[in-house]
């Protein structure tokens, strides 16, 4: 191999004048996490609403949920980001479109919203499965106690369902973090983007990607550990995973 390794590169100043190359990667990491967290909040909110709708007795709600999930699940994330970023401003009235295009940090907001909606379909499916895994008697008992549908979901079904689907939700959150890398295509300088530009400036391909890889592994490990604690904390007594 005639590749010139230079691990000291991380401590050399980057050409952007924002400190060292390491600072560049770390700022990418921060942006990755910010995007992922915002996207995850959007995914949880919309995914929960749609997931509940898919379990309601109302046919219209079920149909809406079905369409939502199929729409966001059957298109590549990259295409969805392009639709949000390039197509949506053109389809809106001219003034709104121009305002959208000139928004500061447009790639960040687009990425968070695009990834959030993309993941919301997956959250909805998980939640639907979680609610479906509860014994029918729980819903019936809630009705028999005089709880309204809303109260039944709020106090009986959802607290159980969310705790049951915590492990798959963890991997969906990890997917959200990984999916932020797709936003490199709309110019978001998250971790992969920063590693790529470090490679372009310094020609140290493998150092840049090794560092990015290690940072992703680190984030993964932290999230998995934190979620394991959360799982233990909210475990349902009497279930296999419970105390």
């Amino acid at each position, binding site marked *: 191999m005639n590749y010139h390794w230079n691990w000291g590169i991380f401590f050399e100043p980057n050409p952007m004048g924002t400190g060292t190359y390491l600072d560049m990667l770390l700022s990418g990491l921060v942006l990755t996490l910010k995007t992922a967290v915002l996207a995850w909040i959007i995914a949880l909110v919309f995914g929960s609403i749609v997931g509940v709708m898919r379990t309601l007795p109302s046919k219209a709600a079920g149909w809406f949920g079905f369409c939502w999930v199929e729409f966001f699940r059957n298109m590549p994330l990259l*295409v969805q980001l392009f639709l949000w970023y390039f197509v949506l401003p053109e389809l809106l009235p001219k003034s709104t479109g121009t305002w959208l295009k000139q928004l500061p940090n447009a790639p960040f907001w687009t990425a968070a919203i695009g990834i959030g909606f993309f993941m919301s379909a997956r959250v909805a499916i998980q939640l639907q499965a979680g609610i479906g895994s509860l014994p029918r008697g729980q819903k019936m008992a809630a009705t028999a106690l005089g709880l309204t549908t809303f109260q039944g979901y709020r106090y009986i079904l959802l607290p159980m369902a969310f705790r049951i689907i915590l492990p798959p939700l963890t991997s969906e959150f990890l997917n959200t973090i990984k999916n932020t890398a797709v936003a490199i295509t709309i110019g978001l300088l998250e971790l992969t983007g920063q590693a790529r530009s470090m490679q372009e400036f310094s020609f140290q391909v493998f150092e840049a990607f090794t560092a990015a890889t290690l940072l992703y592994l680190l984030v993964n490990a932290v999230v998995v550990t934190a979620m394991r604690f959360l799982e233990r904390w909210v475990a349902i007594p009497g279930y296999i995973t419970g105390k």
Partner: protein
Amino acid sequence: MFSNFDFGVIIRALPYLFYEGMTFTLMLTGLAALGGLVFGTAIALMRLSGYKTLGRIAGVYVDFMRSLPLVLVIFWFYFLVPYIGQWLTGALRPISVGAFASSLITFIMFEAAYFSEIMRAGIQSISRGQPAAANALGLTYAQTMRYVVLPQAFRNMLPVLITQTIVLFQDTSLVYVLSITDFLGAASKVAQRDGRLVEMYLFAAVVYFTISCIASFGVRRLQARIAIIR
């Protein structure tokens, strides 16, 4: 809103989009799924082999691949494969690898991690008595796997395997980051050449959506047909 929507742009670009772009996308999807399945099955067998070191190596590989974003893995292989090729062939310089070969290797290695988890679940779903019976009949390990366990595991997991292939089909669009002319890449090249982003990206979205929808509908039908009633 759609006042200056120009269908002509799409129609003129159709041959390019499908002959160049879609052919690339479908070839990549098909070959990567096949390769991923073969390697994935091998990894699953390693994990279930009972040899601790072998199992651990396979486990680390799967966890490693699954915790990285596909875009980063695409970049990794794009830059790494020429050096690996140089090392394997003993050439003086990093060999140049075509766009297709590079992305095919990437997707096979990446998908193998995901397919291996599916095959592992499939193999574990076979009741213990079956390999035991095969053993009692005098079948070797290879024969047991080849004739008893794997056909059933494959059949049980077929819907999941196809679903993963649909995901793979959508993920191949990410080769866009290497400026490769897959379906989306072709659409984007036309879009930028003609300044028709709206038409081309909407059309690409519709095509991806239709294909994925039909395929997942097919999976649902298949699932109902091949389900083993126990």
